[in-house]
């Protein structure tokens, strides 16, 4: 008998000819995620198993697996050579406390003559003999004892099926550059695209000394939390102070944010192309703030020439975004008070419905902008973000 964790596939289960590609990628991602533990990964038909680990770290391994996209569910299980008469003996000592139970059998091994129901009856009978205080309840049991009899003369017994995020293995859907601020939304946007298999790189605009070192540290911290889901990635920190000052100097106050965002996406696209990213990812949610109205999005979008801009939160309410941010544990860091844009550069009344022509005119007012942009790109700081 051996303790193992069963890993079931999500959507890739449905893939056709290129299923192998997805499986291999998922295996690689699982191995990376579990590289901090002493354990092995075994591959089987439509499943993986984690084995060879110390029982004490089982919960930690499961927590880590829950963050790997492409996994449908996991179950801590007991692995034994198939022997129906021994199941009750093997599990009875460590059976979770319950007054009622049922046995559910899946029999892939068709060389066994008994039907699943008959096997369940036999195991249930054995358990009742060993645990006479328990009783059977087929409809509403406190404990469901699953016995999975596989074709290779091996059986797995487990009691719970822990749901995971599903999605696609990270790396299966290209690479995107996430515009990561210190706020609540952008980390969630990164999480959502990673869930669809996108490999994440991130970019952050830093305006020291007008914002603090802590503001940057906060973004690094958020990156660390996201990397628990999408693996390690580079964070490109763009020195943005001179551009901020130039916007402040040359542009109409109500257009300052509009122009700032135009430049941000422009720089992002240039870095994205350099890093072979196939898309930009933003945390924009329609109408949430002045810079996220349809008109504002139209203006910022106009600066992106060749890449798609993915906005996974576009239809979501703030409360929905906060809910996910709490679930993925970025919320507490996101609400730390360090701002990512200094109030000096924030207009009192930002334009809500900017006209593209006016925005472009304001953008064009900035003397020497292309040099400033080149300078910012040439001085990008690259921080390696690793799992927390």
């Amino acid at each position, binding site marked *: 008998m051996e303790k193992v964790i069963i890993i079931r596939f999500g959507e890739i289960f449905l893939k056709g000819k290129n299923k192998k590609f997805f499986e291999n990628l998922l295996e690689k991602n699982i191995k990376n995620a579990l590289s901090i533990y002493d354990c092995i990964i075994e591959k089987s038909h439509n499943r993986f198993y984690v084995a060879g680990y110390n029982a004490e770290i089982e919960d930690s391994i499961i927590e880590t697996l829950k963050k790997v996209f492409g996994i449908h569910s996991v179950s801590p299980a007991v692995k034994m050579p198939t022997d129906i008469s021994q199941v009750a003996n093997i599990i009875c000592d460590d059976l979770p406390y319950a007054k009622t139970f049922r046995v559910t059998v899946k029999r892939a091994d068709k060389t066994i003559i008994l039907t699943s129901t008959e096997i369940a009856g036999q195991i249930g009978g054995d358990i009742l003999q060993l645990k006479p205080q328990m009783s059977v309840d087929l409809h509403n049991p406190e404990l469901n004892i699953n016995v999975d009899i596989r074709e290779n003369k091996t059986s797995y017994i487990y009691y719970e099926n822990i749901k995971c995020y599903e999605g696609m293995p990270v790396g299966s859907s290209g690479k995107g550059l996430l515009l990561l601020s210190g706020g609540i939304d952008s980390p969630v946007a990164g999480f959502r695209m990673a869930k669809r298999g996108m490999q994440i790189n991130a970019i952050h605009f830093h305006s020291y000394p*007008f914002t*603090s*070192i802590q503001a940057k540290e906060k973004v690094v911290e958020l990156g660390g939390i996201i990397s628990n889901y999408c693996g390690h990635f580079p964070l490109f920190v763009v020195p943005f102070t001179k551009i901020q000052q130039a916007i*402040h*100097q*040359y542009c109409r106050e109500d257009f300052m944010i509009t122009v700032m965002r135009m430049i941000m996406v422009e720089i992002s696209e240039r870095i994205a192309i350099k890093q072979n990213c196939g898309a930009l990812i933003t945390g924009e949610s329609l109408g949430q703030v002045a810079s996220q109205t349809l008109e504002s999005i139209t203006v910022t979008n106009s600066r992106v020439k060749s890449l798609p801009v993915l906005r996974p939160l576009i239809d979501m309410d703030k409360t929905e975004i906060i809910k996910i941010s709490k679930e993925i544990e970025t919320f507490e860091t996101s609400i730390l*008070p*360090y701002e990512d844009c200094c109030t*000096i550069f924030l207009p009192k009344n930002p334009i809500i419905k900017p006209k593209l022509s006016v925005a472009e005119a304001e953008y064009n007012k900035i003397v020497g902008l292309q040099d400033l942009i080149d300078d910012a790109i040439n001085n990008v700081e690259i921080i390696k973000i690793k799992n927390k």
Partner: protein
Amino acid sequence: MIYLDNSATTAMYPEILDIIKEYAVDNFYNPSALYTKSLGVTKDIKRAKQKIIDILHGSGNIIFTASGTEADNMAVFGVKRFKDCKILVSDIEHSAIYQSVKRLQAQGVLVEFVTVDKYGIVDEDDFISKLTDNVALVSVMHACNETGAINDIERLVKLTRQAAPRALFHSDGVQAVGKIPINLTRLGVDMYTFSAHKFHGMKGVGGLYLKKCVQINPLILGGGQEHGLRSATENVSGIISTAYALNKTYRNLNIDKNKQIISFIAENLQKIVPNLILNTNFEKSLSNILSFAIKNTRGEVLVHLLEDKGIIIGTGSACSAQKAHTRVPLALGLSKEYFDGMLRISIDNSTTMDDAEEFVKEFASCYNYLESVMSGN
């Protein structure tokens, strides 16, 4: 580097490392044990306590805690309350007091806040008007951590004794200790808080002085150390080094020199910045603190610019790092345009006039740079 944020914390005297080693490695015994070595440690603790009490001219006991914040909490939550009693605190108490009384308020205890003037000194008329005979606790800070304002604790205690004889008087002396001579007996307070790291001692050591016969309830229960008022194995090196640090700080204290430096800085800042408000009243203030506010300016940006030039100063509590905390500038009556521009210089015995001159020079260049950015030139 020129460090001008000594009200936030001070550098520990390096020789304290020897004290730490002595009581953590060589003479590490638990003071509560029964062997002779432990008794030696107990005696050392007693001596250290007595030394602190002597330096502060007290007549009572000191309960050591892990911080000034803990000592403040102990004073607020430890006081025995009676039916329909009231707690009276000043408007600009440190968060350790403010948040504690807010908790009691949420639990239904009546709490009243006494207003302060624009420098942070308690308004005596307002104090008297709120001082009814059902007051169970008064807490007024001795010196304000923001502005350096020194409250006339002796007088406030006398007023309290007359109008509210059942009340205990607590004063948070975290900023005052080591900066001005303290005579706890003359002040007449029942409880008084201090924190070692503000006078070059270790972080993680605070204390609550209790006047003789003053009784409060403990917050932490356990083995009954500190007369049952603060259970936990004593932080021996912390306690002994606190006595050392306090003694040395008072020996080195040169109030006149500090005053000269602070006045020099204040005069020059007023020349550099046209819309400068001084929150510090030099007549009634610690000699080492200067608080000022600049209109429509981000103090935080100046902090970063100065840091890049090797000078460290502090922001007021309204800095962006604690956006919700506009309590103190509001209490000082500052208008909104000044909230973000609150800055604090706090020097210590080692600060020289050369440091001050260097600071003034660099401040001028940083301020002028920021001004040019803000005006878009």
